């Protein structure tokens, strides 16, 4: 079974941040997606981004994850052996490789992150093959390990995810991402499409995996309770801008900005 120590990433620099987001702005014509967002993220830190619908959370996540070029500003990632490099100045092939190996991206809708018609096992094994593993038996074993770790029944390894429940599909999407031992996970509303009871189970699983694997993660959520449970740090966005940031419990227990106060007081308990 894969262990955290076996996958401990070699860092070019253990001191610097893993990710540096510097004054990122993304405009859609006249409209603002997000504006002037900056922060550092270190290894093992989980950062949540919350805010109302249309506040720019997904836009920001896509900019950071190399999926949408910012109109202005830079996104730097700490590459093994090279240190901080602007990801949008890497070749397209390198950026794609980075996204497939060092990063994971969990979509709100599992159908956007899975190939729904090929088997569950192939969905997980595919990422291993993409980084050059050709040993069928080993791929199948590793795939089985990861299915177990996300609490999926390995007897379903040959079934298509189309036959899985939403919660199972979401766990499969997570296994597919973790199989390459990424250092950084991006998640866009990972639990929003699930029943409340299934949400709790998935959150608990994510929490355990993130701390066991020392993963850094950026999680977009509109649910402050999810942020409280998963994230060390929290950014609050409004109209494309970050209006408040800090440790998650600071932001939720002692909100400073009028918008954050409104957000916190309008939920029952977070």
């Amino acid at each position, binding site marked *: 079974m894969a262990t955290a120590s076996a996958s401990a990433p070699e860092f070019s620099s253990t001191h610097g941040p893993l990710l540096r987001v510097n004054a990122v702005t993304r405009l859609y014509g006249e409209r603002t997606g997000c504006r002037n967002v900056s922060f550092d993220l270190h290894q093992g*830190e989980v950062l949540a981004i919350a805010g109302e619908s249309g506040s720019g959370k997904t836009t920001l996540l896509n900019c950071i994850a190399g999926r949408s070029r910012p109109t202005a500003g830079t996104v730097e990632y700490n590459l093994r052996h090279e240190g901080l490099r602007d990801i949008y100045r890497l070749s397209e092939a390198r950026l794609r490789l980075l996204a497939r190996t060092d990063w994971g991206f969990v979509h709100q809708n599992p159908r956007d992150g899975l190939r729904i018609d090929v088997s569950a096992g192939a969905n997980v094994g595919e990422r291993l093959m993409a980084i050059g593993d050709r040993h069928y038996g080993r791929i199948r074993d590793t795939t089985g390990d990861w299915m177990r770790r996300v609490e999926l029944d390995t007897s379903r390894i040959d079934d298509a995810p189309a036959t899985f429940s939403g919660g199972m599909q979401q766990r499969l999407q997570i296994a597919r991402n973790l199989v390459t031992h990424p250092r950084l996970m991006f998640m866009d509303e990972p639990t929003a499409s699930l029943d409340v009871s299934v949400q709790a189970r998935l959150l608990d699983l994510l*929490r355990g995996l993130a701390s066991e694997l020392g993963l850094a993660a950026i999680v977009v959520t509109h649910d402050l309770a999810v942020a409280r*449970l998963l994230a060390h740090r929290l950014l609050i966005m409004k109209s494309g801008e970050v209006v408040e940031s800090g440790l998650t419990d600071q932001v939720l*227990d002692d909100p*400073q900005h009028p918008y954050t106060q409104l957000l916190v007081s309008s939920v029952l308990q977070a």
Partner: protein
Amino acid sequence: MTADLMVRVRGLRKTFVLHHQNGARLPVLDGVDLDVRRGECVVLHGPSGAGKSTLLRSLYANYRIQQGSVEIRHAGEWVNLADAAPRELLAVRAQTVGYVSQFLRVIPRVPALELVAQPLLGAGVARRDAESRAGALLARMNVPEKLWSLPPATFSGGEQQRVNIARGFISRFPVLLLDEPTAALDAANRAVVADMIDDARREGAAIVGIFHDDEVRGRVATRLHPLAALPEAA
């Protein structure tokens, strides 16, 4: 003697601004100075609303420090919580400062034993050792063994509080912050907690606490730090 100093608060001010209550301003702390040394248990003392919990939360960086400084001796260095980066604050919490709130924050699906062991597991202690220390603490606090494997969501208030205390004490933090940890407990369990506080203090912890119960306060306090309610802002 200064080598014993663990917490150093200078000129700490806190005013809450309630933006949706017509911008009401609520001054709570007005220039607090406080030193806490190893082997001390300083009890914050004052009427309801005087800002005892606010001060305690500021020592944990749970509440933001608007003016003044809160310094904690962390790994041999002074860290000022007022301007430390998020990851420094997280490190201070992981290694130096423990906080026992009045209520347990239940995490879905996580059993009591695991909840108590988590701080040690996070610090890299082997699971077997962490769980055996967690079990010993829960036993000392009279939490029935049949509850250990259950998530505390369904526990009584007193049982939850004891789980919470066990979680706070397991790491033997050099600085321990206690906000009415005995409020929901019966006399026998209050006495156990008072013993645990004394033990931690004798082992060298610097403790800051809030205790409404006169008997417990008299038992554990080495010193009182008075806090007065501030007049309301105009």
